[in-house]
């Protein structure tokens, strides 16, 4: 970013440009890189906290057959801004399993640009939890540059207050990307009518033997399921919390057990904080 993005820039159409404008130009994009040798595995744990503008550009190269396990938590203090870019290249047969938990600050944007070579595999679980007037977004560009690669993106968002949660997911399949198997699933749960969810799936396909699935839904808690729980003795607040946690669980499903338990505990705490005022308003 050398100039402040504008509303007409497609990739920023749902962003909080006012918030970004306030921290701009505030400093250069901080570059970091990680290189994983062929056949090796490594972790990326980016837990963002604090009040400063986080504006990192992280470049990660995963060698042939290598593995990247990533956990990115955007938990900045209220009012802060994050615009993080991650560029990940997966060589032949490499794999990446990334979980994003985007919940802090005033404006939090996590963008991934992933290139997959032959037989590579990319799994993404994205969770956005927002309230008040937060704007939180996950932007992904997944490039199937080689044949036979797989990508799975599961993004779930729970929004209260007047928060805005967005997922912009582009899948670009090159001519060489035959036998691509790509899937995206975005679901948004609006706890209050003032919240907004945006979904922009985009498929650009130049090969003719591919599978590219995508789905997006925005809704409220299932009233029949809530009644079922209440009719069995579960008080309304507890029923809402249970269903909301269940809603987000898909996004964390692909994590290893111990990591998932830690993530679920974190998510439960965030949901409790979000649900308390929302339920008081609904009562």
């Amino acid at each position, binding site marked *: 970013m050398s100039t402040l993005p504008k509303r007409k820039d497609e990739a920023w159409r749902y962003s909080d440009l006012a918030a970004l404008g306030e921290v701009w130009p505030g400093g250069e994009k901080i570059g970091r890189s990680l290189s994983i040798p062929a056949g090796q595995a490594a972790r990326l744990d980016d837990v963002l906290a604090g009040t400063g503008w986080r504006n990192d550009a992280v470049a990660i190269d995963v060698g042939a057959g290598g593995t990247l396990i990533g956990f990115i938590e955007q938990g900045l203090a209220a009012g802060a801004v994050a615009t993080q870019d991650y560029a990940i290249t997966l060589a032949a047969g490499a794999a990446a399993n990334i979980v994003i938990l985007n919940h802090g600050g005033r404006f939090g944007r996590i963008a991934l640009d992933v290139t997959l070579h032959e037989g590579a595999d990319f799994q993404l679980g994205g969770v956005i939890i927002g309230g008040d007037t937060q704007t939180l977004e996950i932007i992904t560009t997944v490039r199937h540059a080689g044949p036979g690669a797989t990508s799975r993106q599961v993004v779930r968002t729970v929004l209260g207050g007047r928060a805005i949660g967005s997922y912009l997911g582009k899948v670009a399949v090159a001519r060489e990307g035959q036998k691509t198997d790509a899937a995206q699933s975005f679901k948004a749960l609006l706890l209050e009518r003032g919240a907004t969810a945006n979904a922009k799936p985009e498929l650009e396909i130049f090969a003719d033997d591919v599978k590219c699935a995508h789905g997006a839904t925005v809704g409220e808690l*299932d*009233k*029949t*399921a809530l*009644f*079922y*729980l*209440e*009719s*069995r*003795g*579960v*008080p*309304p607040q*507890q*029923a809402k919390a*249970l*269903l909301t*946690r*269940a*809603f987000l*669980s*898909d996004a964390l499903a692909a994590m290893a057990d111990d990591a998932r338990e830690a993530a679920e505990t974190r998510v439960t705490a965030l949901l409790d904080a979000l649900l308390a005022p929302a339920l008081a308003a609904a009562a």
Partner: protein
Amino acid sequence: MLKIENLTAGIEGKTILKGLNLTVNAGEVHAIMGPNGAGKSTLSYVLAGRAGYEVTGGSVSFQGKDLLAMAPHERAAAGVFLGLQYPVEIPGVSNLMFLRTALNAQRTLRGEKEASGAEFMKLAKAAAEALGLPFEMLKRSVNQGFSGGEKKRNEMVQMAVLEPHLCVLDETDSGLDIDALRVVSEGINRMRSQERATLLITHYQRLLDYVVPDFVHVLIDGRIVRTGGAELARELEADGYAGMAEAA
């Protein structure tokens, strides 16, 4: 245990129950039969407290308390169990988690100690086995991938673990094959006791061959028009509801 007096209720401005009277004592099994649209499901939803169903007159007392003044979860803790006609699927919440949460929520509301993990598993395993549901199925999300019969068996598993005082079973026999019907009926019969009452809402007489009721009521156009013993069900099967409607 349950006393319904002159109950009028409806949904979306339309009155469906038009002055229903019914008394159910502990230890009794009552069957309510009637044609489609008579108000059978409306009655069960009003007893459970489902939103959207409006009571416009009359009263319902349960164990001496005003049932209509209680929220759905309070009614459950007081001992009311509604076996749904169309059990709901809840992705992301396992049957075990659902049932354990329900049991402990009820116990907490009653001031009782919560069930420990081990205690709960023992109850759940026993109930599943008695109702012919493989325990593995209880680890799945609530009713997800369950056939109609399996969903009804699952309702019975929940009933066995929650041990309600009043079992309101809304068309529990619909969608059941012969074996499932027998298993579900045995489940209902096992729960019969001096302290418990059961209200069976059904179209068909065959359930009543297995779960022999003490009383059979005919519900037509929002009112109970006739009450009799178990043999009334056979009479209905032979003659249909038309005769009843004229006599009403």
